[in-house]
Every structure is written in structure tokens, then in C-alpha cells.
């Protein structure tokens, strides 16, 4: 099953289970969403539970928030992450603070699905990574699965959570990444990283599409240089699960963080800070990062998009470099 199929089927099952769940967004109805993540749902659940909204992201978020505090469990789709900016006020300014600001009396069980990421010839406005602000904001949970299995388990947890969850779906993984997904119902806990590959020599921390590129790179360097890379998939960007990272670095003494987002003041900065504070005496080498240049993500023209994106080859090079320090 692909990532997008697993998301669609999870939404379908949850909507069958709980009539308080409804979905809203642009083109999610008869069109089935521009990525078909909601394909067929309008037919099954009708237009009252599958609402095609006007082109207005702030109200998509604000209306979902209002419905959530009044007993519903909305799943809002922002068509592309690049268009989440108009909704920031309602998500970061409002939704994140509802429970805290009412001393626990009101709360917002809402899930905001945000397809993000590049390597899809999306240019400056269909390629963005937008996790930084959400991952910084107290009151939000931010999930970024990379496999069909994790997407399904984490989306279930997100939909059932009683607080707002920003659910990040990497567009490039939608159809590219396939994987086994058990039929029986299961959930994956929000806030838990997952070791996707064991290794003794170096700890690589990543998420999203970069997980797959990193796993490729890990195979390459293990074959070519016999370097054992432990690959940790963050899966949740807020709260960050530091235990497995620190535990792994304690064993390997080397940490490499790989992300698609630009590096300055980002998730990779925080991982590095956590390691530099809590695993300092375990480190044998500097904490290194693989990330794009400090430019707006990302040029439309192919040679430049390729230059911009981290690749398995670039990651492998960084691994070799770090293991020699």
C-alpha cells in the first residue's frame, strides 16, 4: 500500500467509526483532493461530512477550530504546505493556546493535514517545508510519518487526540513509498521516534522523505566502507523524542542529522542542541548536518532542484566524512 492510500483508508475507517469526524478543505470533495487523499469519501459520507471549502485557508483553520471546540473532530486539509501561511494565525496564534488559555475547559481535537516537501518539480511554491514554526509552538503536536505503516498508525492517533495535531505528509512519499500495513486496527504513539535501522558506528537522525534517502545511503556506506549507520526516524517533530537519540549517540559517539528543510533555526538545530547538551560527553566528533543551502526552497528548473535537494549520494559523503573525524 502507498502512503497516500494508507492515509485515505485511515480517514475512511475513522469516519466510519466516529460520526463526529468530518473533513474539510479545498477540492477534497468530488475531486477527491489534488492528491486523491480523500478520493471516494464524498460519495461515502456525503457533502455534510466532506466539505469543499472556499479558497480561504485562514477560515479553513478557524472554522475547524470552532467546530472542534464544539464537539466535532474535524480533519482539515491544507492543499499544499506552501499555502498554510494564511492559516498560521488560527493554528499557531489560536488553536495551540485554546486549552491552556481556558485553563483546560475548552480544547480542540482537530487534525490539520499538510502535504509538504519537494523533489516534485514544485518550484518555490509547491515544495516548501513548513515544520519549523509548528515544531516550535507549545500546545501543538507535529507528526511527520515517512512510511504507510507509520502514516496509518499516527494518523489514527492524531484524529483521536484531544488536542490539535499538525499532520505533515511528504508529497514525494505519497506514491513513491510502499509498505506493508496490517489489516487489524493499530495506532502508533505520537511523540515516539523509531529506529529504522540499527548500526554501531554513527547515529543518523532524520524524518520524512529524507528517511528513505538516508536508508539508501546507509546501505551504500555499509557495503562500500563497512560503516554501520543507525537510522532514527523522528516521526514526531513536537514533542521531540530525545531518549532514543541520546541512547544511540551514547553507543555510536557520532551524530549526523539529515533534513530537507533549510538548516538555520530548524528541527535539525534542535536535535543538535539536545545532543550538545545531553550527550556531550559521549560525543567523539562534532554534530554534523546534511541540509539544503540557505535559499528559498526550491528552484523549479531540474538541475537546480537536484542541486538543492539532499540526495543519498550527498548523505553518504557526509557519513564517510563524519566517521573519519
Amino acid at each position, binding site marked *: 500500500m502507498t502512503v497516500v492510500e494508507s492515509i485515505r483508508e485511515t480517514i475512511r475507517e475513522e469516519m466510519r467509526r466516529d460520526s463526529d469526524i468530518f473533513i474539510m478543505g479545498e477540492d477534497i470533495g468530488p475531486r477527491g483532493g489534488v492528491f486523491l487523499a480523500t478520493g471516494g469519501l464524498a460519495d461515502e459520507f456525503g457533502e455534510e461530512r466532506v466539505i469543499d471549502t472556499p479558497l480561504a485557508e485562514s477560515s479553513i483553520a478557524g472554522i475547524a477550530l*470552532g467546530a472542534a471546540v*464544539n464537539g*466535532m473532530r474535524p480533519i482539515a486539509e491544507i492543499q499544499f504546505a506552501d499555502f498554510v501561511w494564511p492559516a498560521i*494565525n488560527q493554528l499557531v*496564534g*489560536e488553536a495551540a493556546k485554546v486549552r491552556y488559555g481556558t485553563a483546560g475547559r475548552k480544547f480542540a481535537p482537530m487534525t490539520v493535514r499538510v502535504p509538504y516537501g519537494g523533489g516534485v518539480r514544485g518550484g518555490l511554491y509547491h515544495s516548501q517545508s513548513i515544520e519549523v514554526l509548528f515544531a516550535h509552538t507549545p500546545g501543538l503536536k507535529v507528526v511527520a510519518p515517512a512510511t504507510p505503516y507509520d502514516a496509518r498508525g499516527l494518523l489514527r492517533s492524531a484524529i483521536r487526540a484531544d488536542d490539535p495535531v499538525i499532520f505533515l505528509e511528504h508529497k514525494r512519499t505519497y506514491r513513491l513509498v510502499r509498505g506493508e500495513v496490517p489489516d487489524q486496527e493499530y495506532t502508533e504513539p505520537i511523540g515516539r521516534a523509531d529506529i529504522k535501522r540499527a548500526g554501531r558506528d554513527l547515529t543518523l537522525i532524520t524524518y520524512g522523505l529524507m528517511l528513505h534517502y538516508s536508508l539508501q545511503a546507509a546501505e551504500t556506506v555499509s557495503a562500500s566502507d563497512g560503516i554501520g549507520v543507525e537510522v532514527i526516524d523522528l516521526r514526531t517533530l513536537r514533542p521531540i523524542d530525545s531518549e532514543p537519540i541520546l541512547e544511540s549517540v551514547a553507543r555510536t559517539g557520532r551524530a549526523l542529522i539529515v533534513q530537507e528543510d533549510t538548516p538555520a533555526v530548524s528541527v535539525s538545530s534542535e536535535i543538535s542542541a539536545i545532543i550538545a547538551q545531553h550527550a556531550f560527553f559521549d560525543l567523539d566528533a562534532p554534530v554534523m548536518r546534511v541540509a539544503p543551502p540557505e535559499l528559498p526552497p526550491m528552484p523549479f528548473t531540474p538541475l537546480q532542484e537536484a542541486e538543492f535537494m539532499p540526495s543519498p549520494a550527498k548523505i553518504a559523503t557526509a557519513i564517510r566524512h563524519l566517521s573519519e573525524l
Partner: protein
Amino acid sequence: MANIGADPIAASSPGHVFDGLLSNRDLLQMYRTMRLSRALDERIWMLNRQGKAAIAASAQGHEAAQAGTIFATDPARDRYLIYYRQLTAMLCLGTTPVEMLKQFLARDGEIMSNARQFPLHGSHPRVDLFSFSNVVGTQLPQAVGVALADKMKRRDAVTIVFFGDGAASQGDCHEAMNFAGIHKVPVVFLCENNRYAISVPLKQQMPIESIAARASAYNIPGTEVDGTDIIASYEAVSEAVTRARSGNGASLVELTVERLLPHTTDDDHTRYRSPEDIEQMKKRDPLPVTEAILRRHGIIDDEINREILDWARREVDDATHIAESTPFPPAPEMYHGLFADDSEEIDRA
């Protein structure tokens, strides 16, 4: 006050054919609450000047609009998204002076947010009411979402969302009214137009005179009413609430009022309001206007009015005493209630 009949009257103030069900008692109740609001409002301003209340926005000038509005709704089933200038509405909804003062003094047990937020922000223990933030305009799409949920669940509830003329300039106002118009959700957009967004006068906020005139852009009814007239306000809101309750969707009601004091205790409106403007607006103080209506209907006389004023002052004095003798919430309390699952430990600072 046994000498006041409770039987409905055909109340009428110049220019109004009143066909609602306001009884003498209702009108008296409204008036008493307005007096209480005014007395409390003046006390709060004083507490700020004494350095005890960090900040306050005054409801003075908005009292009739708010009383008329709340009395046209049903607190037992309706929902309210308020903003910071709604002291009178809060009192009409049964909030006590002590509860209000604890907000301004940020004391322990404050009902809306346990003093995590500014006064009038948070939610209410007895009424379905909230004001999540100070960010002007955000409540409008939220209200539409609240009403959408009620529509989906076929619940008999109307959502009243309050906003000022300033909020009408926000993109969120457009998006909210547009969606409400499309989906006919049971919401009343209640604009208290006091002609100023802090210091910015209406003519620099919009190229038209009336916000209600925009209702047609969203295919909803819009009415502009004199918000210093408590009966007119009551009637206009009643109509909008009835419309929403009977499944006919949203309405926009604009109540024109005056902001009798500066924007907040931090403001000085002589910087931007002309002496004439300030003189003129004082003539539209809703309290004397309402008092006159009640006198005309024989609901109050000098004696009763004095009783009311004395009662209001006593209420405020007692409340001030209680609130001031309440401690601040302890620091450690702040570490709780960020998420449903409180076990997610927040590291201490």
C-alpha cells in the same frame, strides 16, 4: 420593588413598534445590570489608576447594546464568542462582580482562564462562552465553526459572535461571513460599532458608513440599529436569533454605540478625538437614555433609581473587598493543562 408589575407591556420608545415580550421586570433587570456594569466599570478603571489592575477596556457606552443583545438570546442553549469590551454582556449572562474583578486583578480562581489571560479571555464555567485570544477578528471564523457543528448535529443552539468595527477590516471577517452565507449556519454577527479602532476613525477604516451594508455581499440580512436604544437593540437581535433558530442561517446586526472612555486604561483619546467629538458622544450615553425609557414606562421613579444606584455601589464595594483579599494563583499551577494528557511533563523553568 414589589411595586413593579411583571406583566408584559407593549413597550415603545419613539420610533419603535415593539412586539417582543419584554416585561417590565425584564427592562428593570436590564437597567439594573447596566447600572451595575457602569459602577463596576468605573471601579475597575480606578483600580488600574491605583496600580492594582494591569489593564482594562471599558464597556461604558456599550451597555444598552450588550444588555439588549443578551436578553434576546437564551444563555441556557446559545453560545457566545465575546471580546474584551463586554463587561455588561458578562454580567447579563450571570457572571458576578467578584468573578469579574478577579479577572482584572488576576487573582486565584479567576473563572475564565485562572488569570492566565487578560480579563474577559478564556471561557465560562456556566455559559457556553469563550474568547480565546486578543487577536482581533479571529473569533469570527471560530464562531462559524461552532455554529456549523450545531447545524451538523441538529442542535438547537444559536451562536452570537461579538466584534467591533475594527475587526470588520480583517480578512477573517470576510472569510467567516462568506462561509456562513454559503452554509447558512445559525450565527449572529454582532458588531458593536463605536466608530473607532483605538484611534483610527471609521472613515480611515472603511470607505462606507455602515458595516451592515456589507451583509448583501454574503447574502445575509444586515441591520444597523442605534445601540444606545436598548429596545431597538433587543428587537434587532431577537429577529436575527429567531432567524438562526428557525434554520434560516446567519445575520449581521450592527449596533452603533459610543466608546465613552479611551480605548483602554493605556490610552488617552484626547490625542486623537476632537473636543467636539468627545462632547457629542457623551450625549449618547446609554444609561440616561435607558433610565428615561424606564421612567416613561413608569418602571422606575427617583426612589427606585436611587435604590438601584446604591445597590450597585454596594455590590461593587463588597466584590472589590473579596477580590482584593484573594491571593494570586501560585506559580506552579502554570505548569498544568497544556494537553489532555497532563502526564506529558513540562520541564520547570
